[in-house]
């Protein structure tokens, strides 16, 4: 009796083990079709039968990922619901997080050849890295055959989605760096607010005057990544050289000047140091929101809406300072929509991107949160009903589009490490551990070491 029991148990165990290992084999083999294994096997079954004649009846699940704030999650889910309603055969499975952790998660999926069908990408070093690894689908066929309609979109905007000549991302909207200021605070202090034609001297002067008048900070600490890049552009240089193998400027005096300016403002108490900045928890906690400074040069235009909401007081926008700020300023895709190379439903994913780019309702829901729409018709259709803040953002981006030069796209894959090195240097100088001269020298050394890898 006991023996039979043992025998039976062992048979069951064998079956279980066989089932387990079989399952894992299958999973490895089909690692490419995404998280929903059951779904996809159903689909492949369906397409075999259908012989591809009527795609409308076939149920398709697309995976889509993005990063953002809670309000963006809510709005995007609303848009997806709208799309699913109009296209009952499509089901969109969403994956969303904050920006922190998003690219860590995507990197793991990329390593498993398991990227989502529709993926929100970031302009600059991120999209360049993904493109350099051949992980993203070339979207130009879809644009050529009209699946993604980009008629009337300016070339500079479309080009921003290209890496090495291949179109790998469709901009979700356009964006620009912006100097945000609290107009009421300047009025109360009796100081003239900045204008589009302000210089670096004006910037320092305004910040100092406000500080002397009120005792509060005259401006928020700048973040070196965006700011120094802009500073270089304004002076006619770039952060990276053309092929991304080295720094784009030879004279370290540029960084010395930049660091000295910030250091001087911090030493005089006009600007908070890193000890204050590093405790800021998200946009809602920013100094300009809390009324501790009237001037903040670290935002992007699509964040101004959230900033004004949080501050509860009008936030105005001007371009960043400098005599040549029309050369320094640039329009940037706020984000890009990309299609994973491993996607099995590239066509359907492209249709969704087209929907997102060309549908007025989409932008009625999302406002300027993913930037100003790239299609002129959509912009025009929205114009009459814009909220005040969206109107301001539209006007601002419009101004920048006429007073800017094309964005740099030559970010090497190791750019994020270089930006980190720049931040480290900035911090060391601001804490007084290094002089600006030493900092500039150290940054060049570190950057060249990273880029040489």
């Amino acid at each position, binding site marked *: 009796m006991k023996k039979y029991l043992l025998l039976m148990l062992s048979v069951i165990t064998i079956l279980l083990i066989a089932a387990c290992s079989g399952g894992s084999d299958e999973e490895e083999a089909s690692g490419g079709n995404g998280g929903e294994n059951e779904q996809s096997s159903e689909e492949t079954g369906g397409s075999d039968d259908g012989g591809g004649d009527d795609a409308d009846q076939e149920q398709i699940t697309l995976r889509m990922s993005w990063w953002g704030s809670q309000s963006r999650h809510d709005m995007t889910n609303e848009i997806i619901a709208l799309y699913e309603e109009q296209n009952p055969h499509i089901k969109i499975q969403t994956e969303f997080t904050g920006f922190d952790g998003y690219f860590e998660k995507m990197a793991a999926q990329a390593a498993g050849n398991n990227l989502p069908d529709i993926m929100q990408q970031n302009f600059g070093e991120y999209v360049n890295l993904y493109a350099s690894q051949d992980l993203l689908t070339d979207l130009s066929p879809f644009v050529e055959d009209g699946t993604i309609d980009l008629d009337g979109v300016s070339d500079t905007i479309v080009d921003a989605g290209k890496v090495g000549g291949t179109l790998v991302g469709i901009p979700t909207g356009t964006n620009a760096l912006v100097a945000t200021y609290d107009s009421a605070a300047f009025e109360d202090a009796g100081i003239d607010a900045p204008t589009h034609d302000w210089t670096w001297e004006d910037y320092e002067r305004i910040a100092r005057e406000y500080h002397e008048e009120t005792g509060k900070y005259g401006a928020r600490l700048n973040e070196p990544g965006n700011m120094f890049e802009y500073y270089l552009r304004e002076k006619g240089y770039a952060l990276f050289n053309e092929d991304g193998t080295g720094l784009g400027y030879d004279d370290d005096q540029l960084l010395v000047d930049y660091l000295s300016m910030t250091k001087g403002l911090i030493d005089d108490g006009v600007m908070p140091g890193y000890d204050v900045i590093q405790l800021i928890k998200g946009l809602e906690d920013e100094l300009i929101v809390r009324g501790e400074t009237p001037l903040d040069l670290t935002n992007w235009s699509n964040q101004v809406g959230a900033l004004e909401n949080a501050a509860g007081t009008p936030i105005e926008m001007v371009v960043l300072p400098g005599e040549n700020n029309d050369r320094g300023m640039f329009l940037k895709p706020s984000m890009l929509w990309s299609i994973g190379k491993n996607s099995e439903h590239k066509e359907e994913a492209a249709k969704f991107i087209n929907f997102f780019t060309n549908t007025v309702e989409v932008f009625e829901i999302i406002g300027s949160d993913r930037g100003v729409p790239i299609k002129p018709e959509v912009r025009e259709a929205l114009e009459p009903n814009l909220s005040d803040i969206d109107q301001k953002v539209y006007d601002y981006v419009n101004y920048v589009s006429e007073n800017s030069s094309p964005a740099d796209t030559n970010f090497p894959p190791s750019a994020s490490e270089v930006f980190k090195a720049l931040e480290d240097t900035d*911090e060391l100088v601001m*804490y007084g551990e290094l002089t600006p001269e030493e900092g500039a020298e150290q940054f060049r050394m570190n950057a060249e070491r990273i880029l040489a*890898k």
Partner: protein
Amino acid sequence: MGLREPEVQNQMQKNKNLPPTKKFNRKRVGREFENGMGYMFISPFIIGTVMLTLFPIVYSLYLSFTNFNLVGEADWIGLSNYQEMFTSDPMFKQALEVTFLYAGAGVPLRLVFALLIALALNKVVEAAGLYRTFLYLPSIVGGSVGVAIMWRQLFGNDGALNSVLASMGLPTHSWLGDPDTAIWTLVVLYIWQFGSSMLIFLAGLRNIPKTYYEASSVDGAHKIQQFFKITLPLLTPVILFNLVMQTIQGFMAFTPSFIITAGGPMNSTLLYILYMYRNAFQFFDMGYASALAWFMLLIIAVFTALIFKSSDRWVHYDDN
């Protein structure tokens, strides 16, 4: 034994080739069957360990000799990663220094603290379980993100600590913003999570026979003498265990510097594992991160070995 027996049996079989074989055989089959069954039952564990632990470990060793960036092909680059670590990466040195300071200060302090609390608890008779639970709680939630966020609030510029200082008329300080103090807030957090060491100490203390204390007090020893001559020597095996476990944990700390300070200010809290994480998931340099991981393994191995080696001199076992 298991190897030799079948051989002997085989020979016996060859020599005799006679009736007893039947019974004999059945026994053999039975044993093999039982062994097979045994392996089968532990196979889920073995498969899991090989696939989810052993394979990744070996694979990461391989990766440490490549330039794998998580998404592309891994090209063999020999010892370049290790070479870079030791010759040209200033952050590597920084991370090592921070980690040694953190573990070097945190581990002994946590052990002393845990021992003190255990000594106090050992005296408590009523509701001992309740106290134990409360004191152990910080360690249960210890590695968690929640505690780290709370720590941020406590030591922030407008945090609880500064509020208390201000209300007493003392000068406040930017604890997390000052590179000299930020690492110490993390060390304090590490010390505060003393629970598991404390429980082990407590168990060790309970194991010391009361008779020793009685005998020594008859001989006129006072409390302090008793502590140093009886308690501490008899506790050394437990101290050894705690020291090894805590050293390993101390070197591998990640969450506090990730959440509370993000390695800043000025990388003064850049723990080694955080730097490794950055290389892996922010700079996408998996090969380099793997090399860092293997170097950390080496450090921990060396320290553990040193501790064990030194233990001959200071650990007293009861039974000798």
